[in-house]
């Protein structure tokens, strides 16, 4: 049995560069070079992986029984590689000041991307599980990497313990599905469950519920979200950004594969579960966000709320809702990364992360204030920005799938989310800065990165056609 390892070129590149970063880190002190060289190495690796992924667009080939490289995989590969490029770019200054082991930090980012990609590419439960754990383990470590901040270790501890519980739940569910379906291959399982459609055995149902529960934890859906605010707050800021981006998107990629593949025949059995999760998630996430004072916690709850919206697309699962979901995910990633880049720049300058600390930012750093405002407005789905178009299509897809009530609720929650985003905007614009009111400058890389993200955000908001088409092709690979 031979496998075409060429299919995995991007992952091998990522792995190679991850090892290279560690090697460079080892010899760094002898040559007296700063951590910039690590960022550069990692960045080159991520870009190379991105290039390789783009070059493989259109490939549709199976890697043995365990992976498949199709449009869907490629879509997420590109998404993850791009995300990691941005995260590396945004973290350079931060890493120098606040991270214990820069080499490890960058190599973890690269390695976790491998896990994320395999989650999207797996066509078999075992591989999917290992991929989940690669991603999760990297994040457990990365969350705990902050220097001098005791919250970091605590966040890591809570994350790893609860993550372990969730993994156990997920695994137990997978074992039941394996027992009931007799295989770990998605295709075989699909056939097995197709026979059970409508009258699934209790065994299958329990397994299904536990798998969904375990994955809901990874996606931080209520009531499995307890770790999210703590991990977000305790983690170093770039990792918070990464958590909110890749870890979420990868979970949704896996969920999409599972739900449209092996679990598709059981749709009537899991639909209500996801609908319940979706409602609970969007309501709790957005309402609790109203009470937050810390920008990281605010973004944590807001991202929980966003998960509620995304779950909606799974409830109304179809070709259309999937492409809308993929579009929304991309838009959300871009927006979130823009916001985090700006928040990191702010943190590097001030070392503060309470919402009140943003007071008067429009006076001291108007550009950053614009970026944050645009990002937050985009997250709440305001027009001219990515969030509007992608939410519009996402909610529309849910409505067309017969869930008008759910999208109605989502719009209400979306509006509530605007209220807490406005609290930040208000601080920046309505009030005079307290304390040091002098203007300050961003680093050039900060300018470039935020500007690029901002422009992409506007482009996705207005001319989303091309991206939508790509998402549609990717979704098509699932529903062929």
């Amino acid at each position: 049995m031979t496998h075409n390892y060429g299919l995995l070129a991007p992952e091998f590149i990522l792995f190679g560069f991850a090892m290279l970063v560690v090697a460079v880190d080892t010899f760094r002190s002898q040559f007296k070079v700063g951590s910039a060289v690590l960022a550069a190495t990692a960045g080159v690796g991520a870009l190379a992986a991105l290039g390789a992924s783009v070059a493989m667009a259109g490939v549709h080939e199976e890697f043995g029984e365990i992976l498949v490289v199709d449009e869907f995989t490629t879509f997420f590969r590109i998404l993850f590689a791009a995300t990691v490029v941005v995260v590396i770019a945004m973290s350079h200054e931060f890493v120098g000041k606040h991270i214990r082991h820069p080499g490890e930090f960058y190599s973890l980012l690269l390695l976790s991307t491998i896990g994320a990609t395999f989650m999207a590419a797996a066509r078999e439960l075992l591989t999917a599980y290992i991929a989940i754990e690669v991603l999760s383990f990297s994040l457990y470590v990365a969350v705990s990497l902050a220097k001098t901040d005791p919250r970091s270790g605590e966040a890591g501890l809570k994350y790893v313990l609860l993550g372990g519980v969730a993994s156990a739940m997920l695994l137990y569910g997978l074992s039941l599905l394996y027992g009931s379906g007799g295989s770990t291959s998605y295709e075989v399982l699909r056939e097995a469950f197709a026979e059970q459609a409508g009258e699934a055995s209790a065994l299958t149902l329990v397994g299904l519920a536990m798998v969904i529960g375990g994955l809901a934890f990874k996606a931080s859906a209520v009531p499995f979200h307890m770790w999210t605010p703590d991990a977000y707050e305790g983690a170093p800021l770039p990792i918070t950004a990464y958590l909110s981006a890749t870890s979420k998107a990868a979970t949704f990629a896996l969920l999409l594969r599972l739900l449209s593949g092996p679990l598709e025949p059981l749709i009537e059995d899991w639909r209500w579960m996801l609908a319940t999760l979706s409602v609970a998630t969007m309501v709790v996430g957005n309402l609790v966000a109203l009470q937050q004072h810390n920008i990281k916690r605010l973004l944590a709850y807001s991202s929980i709320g966003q998960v509620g919206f995304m779950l909606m697309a799974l409830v109304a699962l179809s070709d259309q809702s999937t492409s809308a979901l993929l579009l929304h995910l991309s838009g959300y990633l871009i927006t979130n990364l823009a916001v985090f880049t700006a928040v990191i720049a702010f943190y590097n300058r001030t070392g503060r992360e309470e919402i009140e600390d943003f007071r008067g930012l429009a006076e001291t750093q108007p550009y950053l204030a614009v970026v944050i405002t645009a990002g937050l407005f985009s997250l709440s789905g305001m027009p001219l920005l990515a969030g509007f178009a992608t939410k519009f299509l996402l909610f529309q897809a849910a409505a067309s799938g017969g869930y008008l009530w759910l999208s109605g609720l989502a719009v209400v929650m979306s509006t509530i989310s605007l209220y807490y985003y406005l609290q930040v905007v208000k601080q920046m614009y309505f009030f005079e800065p307290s304390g040091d009111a002098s203007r300050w400058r961003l680093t050039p890389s900060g300018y470039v990165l935020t500007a690029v993200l901002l422009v992409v955000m506007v482009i996705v908001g207005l001319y989303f056609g091309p991206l939508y088409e790509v998402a549609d092709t990717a979704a098509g690979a699932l529903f062929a």
Partner: protein
Amino acid sequence: MIPIENFLLLSALLFAIGFYGVLARRSAILILMSVELMLAAVSINFIAFAAYMDPEAFTGLIFALFVIAIAAAEVGLALGIVLRVFRERRSSMVDDASSLKW
């Protein structure tokens, strides 16, 4: 011949006990041990299913092997983090790690 139900029942009880431990315990290390119980339950399940239901492909066996490996790695990692928190706080109780709201 032992019927498969026996093994599955054992695993179910083990999992439930582990889950109880996770919820009831406050010490990080004890929670970790409870998680190990749950993972052990999973391995039993996989092996039983593989041996009884899937003897040709026996993916479950391979799955179980990986679960064992990953669970062990998880213990190592979690203990590393426990040590760091302990050094910072002088306590390994989850509740004492409370500068973050639990």
